[in-house]
């Protein structure tokens, strides 16, 4: 089962290496990992999507907590949380195909952020299902490049603030 874990860490160099080597060293699989600053510039948030049964996840949580640079670990799975991913996708688009692509982009509330004589670059945000769906719809036009950020996530407000 997939788990989304939010890890608050000291904003030092080398912390990402510590976290990622913990996963590889213990044979845990990472689906996606994102890092960025938080409201406190000395703290970064890593959002890690990891696959595993309860026993593995319990170990992942404890091992993360054991790292000196980790200040908090929250497994959001089973909680109410918002999860988003950003997609940039460059699609082959001749003049004839443009309007059809733009309709799909509208339906997904995505944006065209770059255009050339034979391509369109689409920006979309959303949960994993939405991102997978828009890629599925645009792929038949011809994919030039895809860049996905991996997921960031946050618990909804009525739970304790994290």
């Amino acid at each position, binding site marked *: 089962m997939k788990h989304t874990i939010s890890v608050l860490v000291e904003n030092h160099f080398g912390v990402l290496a510590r976290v990622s080597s*913990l996963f590889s060293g213990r044979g845990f699989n990472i689906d996606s990992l994102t890092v960025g600053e938080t409201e406190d510039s000395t703290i970064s948030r890593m959002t890690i999507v990891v696959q595993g049964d309860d026993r593995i996840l319990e170990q992942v949580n404890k091992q993360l907590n*054991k790292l000196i640079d980790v200040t908090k670990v929250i497994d959001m799975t089973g909680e109410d949380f918002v999860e988003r991913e950003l997609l940039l996708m460059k699609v082959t688009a001749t003049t004839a195909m443009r309007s059809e692509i733009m309709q799909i982009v509208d339906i997904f509330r995505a944006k065209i952020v770059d255009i050339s004589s034979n391509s369109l670059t689409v920006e979309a945000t959303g949960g994993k299902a939405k991102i997978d769906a828009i890629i599925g719809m645009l792929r038949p036009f011809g994919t030039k490049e895809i860049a996905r950020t991996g997921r960031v996530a946050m618990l909804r407000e009525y739970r304790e603030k994290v």
Partner: protein
Amino acid sequence: MELTGAQILIESLKKEGVDTLFGIPGGVLIAIFDALYDEKQIRFILTRHEQAAAHAADGYARASGKVGVCIATSGPGATNLVTGIATASMDSVPLVAFTGQVGTPVIGSDAFQEADIVGITRPITKHSYLVRDTSELARTVKEAFYIASTGRPGPVLIDLPVDVSKAKAEFVYPREVNIRGYKPKYEGHPQQIKRVAHAIRKAKRPVICAGGGVVSSGASEELRELAEKTNIPVTTTLMGLGAFPSVHPLGLGMPGMHGTRYANNAVTESDLLIAIGARFDDRVTGKLDAFAPSAQIVHIDIDPTSISKNVAVDIPVVGDARQILKELSQIVTPRGPSEWNKKIDQWKDQDPLSYEASPGVVKPQYVIEQICEATKGKAIITTEVGQNQMWAAQYYQYSRPRTFISSGGLGTMGYGFPAAIGAQVARPAETVFDIAGDGSFQMNIQELATVVQHHLPVKVAIMNNKYLGMVRQWQELFFNKRYSGTSLEVGPDFVKVAEAYGVKGIRVTDPKDVRDSIEEALATDGPVVLDFHIAPEEKVFPMVPAGKAINEMMIERMA
């Protein structure tokens, strides 16, 4: 006051109460060694290989309970520490390792003697630092000693670029440490402790399994109090030897692969297993499905990651073993000796550890028994790894914590001799014996120079069978006696090697001479190498074959 980084380092070490530094200098450390030159409070022990410096610091830490400190230069000096750091990490030994590093402007440029030692040691340290500015050095040292020695102890590495040790900064040693991501928890949850007391009251066949955590938290007295109050038999893992006297009526010796049959029987038939500071290593549990199958499992440990990692735990208590045992003893209902105790005593009578004497042959078990008698069970024993380690665990009677020093988790050959050096430095008044094999001893044999230079009267007893004996044993029992790559028939004359370094060497080939040679070594005011020639066929028994249940033990007669 402005000091150089090198001076700040030395002053900081003094603030931490460091009296000994093990290591070897090198290009990027010259400023630090210069600052050390006039220093009276810190003794520098020059080893002949950096690996030995790390093991010696580790042996110092295990013998004294203090943080061991070692130092090595950048590049190869630093990478030579790796095995020692990994050894300390697996056995939760408080160690601070300093490594020199190339100057900050050239880090990452493949400079001469550059290695990314922080990266290399990341998975085998509790934490590590690359100091980028001299003004951060004092705080870094403070944090490193704090992290190494608190919670579940472990090694911390500080990488010191050469320009950082030369530059000047104001020296202010911080009084307190505040690391927001590191708050070790010592108090056990009272509710959980009550549950343990309740489980003890209900249990018919309880067993305590005490590990290295009992030694490192200094909980031996508390353990004894609990065991005696409740008459619960106590088995001690390899790392826990000495935490509970092995000759105590409730003592079961060691469980697991080369444990006693009665300890393994007791664990297997128990209905309550109380593990204290032990982490259910595969060498202890054997086949997991058959490990203590009908027992409720209590696990007292300072490290939450140890709980339910290998064995599912019913009642976890996270915290310091000493405090938890103290509280548990206060609320537990006393129990008199029971049927269970009687049954265990029967097992002990039926199946004691035993070996067959054969005329004219030096038996390693006999040698160790004689060392035990000659030292009245009071020596500090270090071991190498393999058969020598298991015989030393089985046949020496440990009665005090911190007297059995061995690489348990990593199983590092070449550990025992440098660890004995560290132990002897930490406890100069005690007799320190390294029980060695001919294979292991040769992995750090160059340290004979160190014991001579620093006047350390360490005694080495080599169980010389001209084989990598433990692997040979597996080959004999499970691989059709195909002794692939294990013969050490070309080996040195250890007496001559010892003498070449200025150490007394005694060769023993006749069992009649065993005791006299040990007495002679003990009477010698300096290091001695005893070379006991034993039979290559001699094996460690009992033995649980890998992957079998711990009550399926092989004994000599079956093999």
